[in-house]
Structures are given as structure tokens and as C-alpha cells.
């Protein structure tokens, strides 16, 4: 085993053991760190294309509101809601990304199109304040400890989920970045 791999495994072991010893608030911070790391990983993938995206907030918003609204209003389990949210935000990304790709909207212009997209999603959610709670935010209907509703009073469950998500994100990133695609991505960013 290479030293790098051993260090990575030690780091992973520490990350897995952390919830047992940290106070709740620090656990909350750790969850935030992992989630932002995951989002950053997704964003960095765009950077490989030489694109600056301001639209990731929009995709995150869609992904967050779809399962939360479906659960609270229709009692639909997030196990279906989350894939649906992922599908819808991917669809949104396609609807915006494909014309940008076809019509060569790149550089500053791409950044500003995605900025406009994030504003559209943000303001639409704010305008629909009867349903979404507007700028005050939306709290999903409480369900206590439930795997069905993916709600847990203990933060450590969310920590586990966030850690797993981050690792999956890193794995996908590594597969794309280290694979043959890397040269292809770099080539795309060149022209």
C-alpha cells in the first residue's frame, strides 16, 4: 500500500469515528463542511470545462425543495422524492446547458446565464411563498425518528449520510478526472 493510501484510510477512520466524540454543534458544522465539499466537487467538475457556473445554487434549490415539498404536502417518501429532485435539477441543467453548448454561450456570458438562472429559481421560490414559505424558508413536516421520512433527531445519522455522499462525489470526480475523460475535458476547455 502506498503512503498516500494509508494516510487516506487513517483520515477516513478519523472521519467515521468523529461523531462519537464531538459535541452536537461541531457535528452540525462537520455536516455542513461535508455537504459544501460535495457541492464544491460538483462545481469543480464544471471548472474542468473552463466554465464558471453561478447556477449550482439553483440546482441545489430544486433538489432541496422537491423532496421537502412532496413529503410535506403529499407524504411522498424522500426515497422517491430525492431521485425525482435529482432528475428535475438534471433536467433543468440540461435545458440551460444544451443551448449554451449548441449556441456557444461561453466565458462571461455562460457565467451570467447561470447567474440569471439562479435568480429565476430563487425568486420563483420566494414568489410562491404560500407553498414554499418564501424567504422565511420551509421546514418539512416532522416525523421523529424515521428511515421512511429520512428524518432523525440525532445529528450523527445526517453526518453518516453526508460523509457517504461526499465519498461518492469524490469517487465520481476521480473516475472522471483520472480516467481518459480528463484529456477530453481539458481539450474542451481549450476550445
Amino acid at each position, binding site marked *: 500500500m502506498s503512503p498516500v493510501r494509508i494516510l487516506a484510510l487513517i483520515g477516513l477512520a478519523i472521519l467515521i469515528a468523529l461523531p462519537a466524540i464531538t459535541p452536537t454543534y461541531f457535528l452540525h458544522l462537520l455536516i455542513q463542511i461535508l455537504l459544501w465539499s460535495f457541492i464544491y466537487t460538483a462545481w469543480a467538475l464544471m*471548472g474542468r470545462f*473552463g466554465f*464558471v457556473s453561478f447556477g449550482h445554487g439553483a440546482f441545489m434549490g430544486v433538489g432541496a425543495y422537491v423532496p421537502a415539498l412532496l413529503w410535506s404536502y403529499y407524504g411522498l417518501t424522500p426515497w422517491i422524492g430525492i431521485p425525482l429532485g435529482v432528475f428535475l435539477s438534471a433536467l433543468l441543467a440540461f435545458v*440551460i446547458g444544451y*443551448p*449554451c453548448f449548441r*449556441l*456557444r*454561450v461561453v*466565458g*462571461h*456570458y455562460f*457565467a*451570467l*446565464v447561470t*447567474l*440569471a*438562472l439562479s*435568480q*429565476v429559481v430563487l*425568486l*420563483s421560490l*420566494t*414568489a410562491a411563498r404560500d407553498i414554499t414559505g418564501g424567504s422565511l424558508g420551509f421546514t418539512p413536516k416532522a416525523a421523529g425518528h424515521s428511515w421512511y421520512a429520512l428524518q432523525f433527531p440525532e445529528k450523527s445519522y445526517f453526518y453518516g449520510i453526508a460523509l457517504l455522499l461526499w465519498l461518492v462525489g469524490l469517487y465520481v470526480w476521480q473516475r472522471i478526472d483520472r480516467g481518459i475523460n480528463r484529456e477530453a475535458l481539458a481539450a474542451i476547455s481549450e476550445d
Partner: protein
Amino acid sequence: MDIYLLEAIINGLLLGGVLALLALGLNLIFGVIDVVWIAYADIVMCGMYVIYFLYAQYGVPLPLACLIAIAAMAAFGVMVHLLIIAPVLNSPPLNQLLATGGLLFFLQSFATLLFGTEFRNIGVRLPILEIATIYVSFARLIAFGLGLVGAVALYFFLKRTYIGTAIRAIAQDRDIVGLMGVDQRRIYLVTSAIGGALAGLAACLLAMQYDVHPFIGNTFGPVIFMICVLGGLGNMIGGFIASFIISQIIAIGGYYSNSELSYVLAFTLFIVLMFVRPRGLFAR
């Protein structure tokens, strides 16, 4: 025609004056320095706080407070250029974008830390004019008028003075201008100062209409970028026309639905227009 619709159109026109001023400042900086100041609207926010504290807290007369704010923001623009833009002038556009993006978060967080998140009003109560049963806010009328004066003054400055000519020349070809004996660094500083002063003037006009809070830049920042791009980045006259188109969409959209949805309409239209005319409506 519906009298309220007419009122919305006139208010949109008046809003367009202030937006045009901001679009001019941003366009000038982009055209000359070739850097997008993402934090431009937050410099306006700083200017509004300067006016608020000078006028509402320390009792400085409003016109004097406005002049101080304009001067302060011009100095601030120079500082932004020296501290943030100059080091990344030859970096990739992504790094420049991130540097000014960092300034945006810095200014917003710093303002929150210093002043808290409460909405502050400078407490100027200007009368509402009634012209043939149409109500027009006097503050907006002043803002529109001063916005136009600022735009015309900038136009003559760029056309008639030596520095103005140098600024226009540098926007056309930055390499040749250096060979012609123009000091680029000095032009960049002057441009940043003018950009900052325009932000300061816009801050004076906006402080009379809106409450100041640390995140006010977020409410019109994206709109200004949209206007600049629609008009063609660096194209001042295009940006001037685009600001009235966008403000009309916002005003008329707000008349038929609510203000958030009118912005949604404007942004959606922007995205569609970007696909139809990727280099702006008035691309040369």
C-alpha cells in the same frame, strides 16, 4: 389606457434612469479594464451606508453627504483596483471573477458585522407629485434626472477630454495605446475612480428610495449585469437602452403579477435572449 398601467410604465422609466447609471459604471470598467466587478452593487451598498451615517446619524446636510459619499466611493474604487484587480490583471478570467466575488462576500459580511442586518432608512420624506391623476414619486424623479445628468456628463467627459479619449482608446486596443505614450496604469486608476463615483452617485439616488441593509446589492446586482450583457458588454449606449427595456419589463410585469415574478420574467427573457443573440442585443 389603464391609468395604473401608465403609472407603472412611468415608474419603470424612472427606475431605468438609476439602473442606466449603474450599467454605465460597470460597462466602463469592463470595457476599459476587461474585468467584471461582480461586487459592483455592493460598492453601492457601502455608499448608501456612508450617506445613512453622515445624514441620519451625524446630521450632515444631504447634498454634502452625497458629495462625500461620491468622493469616498471614488477612492474606494481606486482601492479596489489597487488591492484586488491589479494583482490579478493578467490572470485567467475565472480568477478575476473569483477575486471580485470574494470582495462581494467580504463587503456583505463586513457590513453585517458592523451594522447588523436591520433595514435602515435615511428618513427623507419627499413629496409624491400628482400629475394629471398619475402619482409620481419625487425621489424617483430626482433620481431619474440626476441619473441622466450623470450619464450625459460621462459622455462628454469621454468625448471631449484627453483622459476620456485615452479611456476610449484603451477600450479599443490596449496594446497599441501603450505604444502611443498613454500610461495604462493611470487610465485604469481614473476609470476605477469614475466607476466608483458612479456607484456613489447611484447610492445617493437609491438611498432616497430604498432602505439600506447589507444585502441590498443582491436585489439589483444581477439586474445590472443582465443589462450590461443585453446591451453588449462594454457598449455604453447599448447598456443605456437595455436598462430601460429591463426596467419596463420589471415595472409592467410587476403591474400584472407581483414584483418577484416580474424579475423572474426579466431573467427568463434574458436567458432566452442570450441564446438568440449571444453577444447582446446591440452587439457590434
